[in-house]
C-alpha cells in the first residue's frame, strides 16, 4: 500500500513537470537504452556469428530487427503513458521501435561517416547530448488517448 502511494507520488511528480522536462526524460531514457543495446551488440556479435553458423547470425538478425524494436517501442509507449497520463497507443510497438532504431542508427551512421568517429565513446556522448530532440521525436512517433479505452 505504501509502495503504491510512493509510486503514485513519483508518477505525479513526473506528470507535473514541464513539457520540455518530460521530453528530455523520455529522450534520455530511450537514448540510454539504445546505446546500451548497441554497445552490447558490438561486443556480442562475434559470439553470435560463431554460434552454430548460420543459426547465430539468424538469431542476431532476429534480435536486431524484431526483438529490439519491440522492446524500444514498448518502452516508448510506456514512457508516454506514464509521463503524459494517456492510455493505449497510435502506432504499433514494432513500427514505433524500428522507427526510433532507424532514426538512431541513421544519426550514428552520419556522424561516423562525416566525422570519422567511433561509436564508443564519441558518438554515444553526442547521442546523449541529443536526448531532447530525440525525446521530441519519440513523443511525436506515438501517442495515446486521454480517455480510457477497452
Amino acid at each position, binding site marked *: 500500500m505504501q509502495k503504491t502511494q510512493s509510486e503514485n507520488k513519483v508518477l505525479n511528480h513526473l506528470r507535473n513537470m514541464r513539457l520540455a522536462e518530460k521530453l528530455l526524460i523520455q529522450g534520455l531514457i530511450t537514448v540510454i537504452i539504445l546505446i546500451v543495446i548497441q554497445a552490447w551488440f*558490438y561486443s556480442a*556479435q*562475434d559470439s553470435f*556469428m*560463431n554460434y552454430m*553458423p*548460420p543459426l*547465430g*547470425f539468424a538469431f542476431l538478425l532476429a534480435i536486431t530487427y524484431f526483438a529490439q524494436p519491440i522492446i524500444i517501442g514498448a518502452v516508448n509507449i510506456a514512457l508516454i503513458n506514464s509521463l503524459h497520463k494517456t492510455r493505449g497507443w*497510435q*502506432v504499433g510497438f514494432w*513500427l*514505433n521501435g*524500428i*522507427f526510433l532504431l*532507424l*532514426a538512431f*542508427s*541513421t544519426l550514428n*551512421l*552520419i556522424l*561516423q*561517416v*562525416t566525422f570519422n568517429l567511433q561509436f564508443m565513446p564519441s558518438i554515444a556522448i553526442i547521442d546523449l547530448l541529443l536526448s531532447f530532440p530525440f525525446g521530441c521525436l519519440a513523443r*511525436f*512517433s*506515438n*501517442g495515446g488517448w486521454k480517455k480510457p479505452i477497452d
Partner: protein
Amino acid sequence: MGKPVSNLVQGLIRFTNKSLVKNLIVITLCVMFFFIQLFYPYDFYSAHSDSNSSFQVGIHYVYEQDNLTDIYGQVTQIYDLGFKVIRINFECDPQYPTDPVNQKTDMFFEATSYYGLAVALVIPNDETTDSINFYLDHWGGNLTYVQIMNEPETSSSWDVGALFTDDEILSTFNSIYTTVESHHLSAELYTNFGIGYVLRPNIPVEFSQKLNFVGLDVYMNSFLVLSPLFIQNLHEITHKDVVITEFGMSTTNSDEQTNYIISGLNLFKSMGLKGCWIVYWNSAYDNYGIRGTPTETAVGDWIAKNAK
C-alpha cells in the same frame, strides 16, 4: 499575423495526431532513413577526397596468357603506369621443372624483382599441398602477399573442389594456411571475400584470426554504391584492414569501364583504404582487361595524380 500561424500549427498538430496519419508519417520516415543509410556513405565519400592518405593501386596480371618473351615488357609497362602491386594466379608445374609455365613464372618474378614491385599470389581453393610447396620453395621469397583461397564463401557449383559446408571451407583453409606458414615467408596473408560473405559472416570472422588483412571483391555498379557499408561491416566483424582485392568491369564499352574504375578508385581512396587492385591487366576470354584500352591511360593518369 500570430494567430493564423498559431491556428495553422494547432491544425497541423491535430492532423498529425490522428492514428492513421501518424502511422503513415512514421512509415514514410522509416523508408527515408533506410535510403539515407543505404546511399549516404557512398555520396559522402564520392564527394570528398582524402588527399593525405597513401593509396596503393594494384592490378591482376594473367601472365600465363602472354608469350614468355612478352612478360618482362608487360611488367615494365605496368610499373611505368604507377601500379605498386601485381596480383597473379597460381601457375606452376611441379612435375616438369622446365615446363613453359614455370619459365613464364621465372620470367615474371625476374621482372618484378628488378622493378621492386609487390606481388600477391592467389592460392586457389583446390590447390594441392605438393604444388603449394613446390611454388613457395621456388618463388616464395618474391611474394609480398599470399591469398589463401579465393572467395571461399561462394558455393558456385557441384564441381570437384567446390565448397559447400563451413567445415570443409575451414579445414581447407587450415590446411593451406599450415602449408604456407611452414615456409616462414615474410609475406602478409589475406583472403578475399565476395559480397556474399554477408550471408556467411562466420567465415571471415574465423579466417581473420590468422590473417594480416582481408580482401573484398567489388563488381557491378550497385555493389560499388553499397561497398562503403560492406567495407565498414567487414572491418567491424574481422577487426582487420580491408583492401579491395578485385575491382573491375567486363564490358566492351570503354567509357563505361573507365568511369566505373575511376569512380571506384576515388571512392576507396577517400575512404582511407590501403589499396585497390584492379582486375585485370589482360584477359583473353572476357572484357575485363584494361591493357591497350582508354581505361589503361585513364588509370595511369589517375595514379600519377592521386596515388603516392
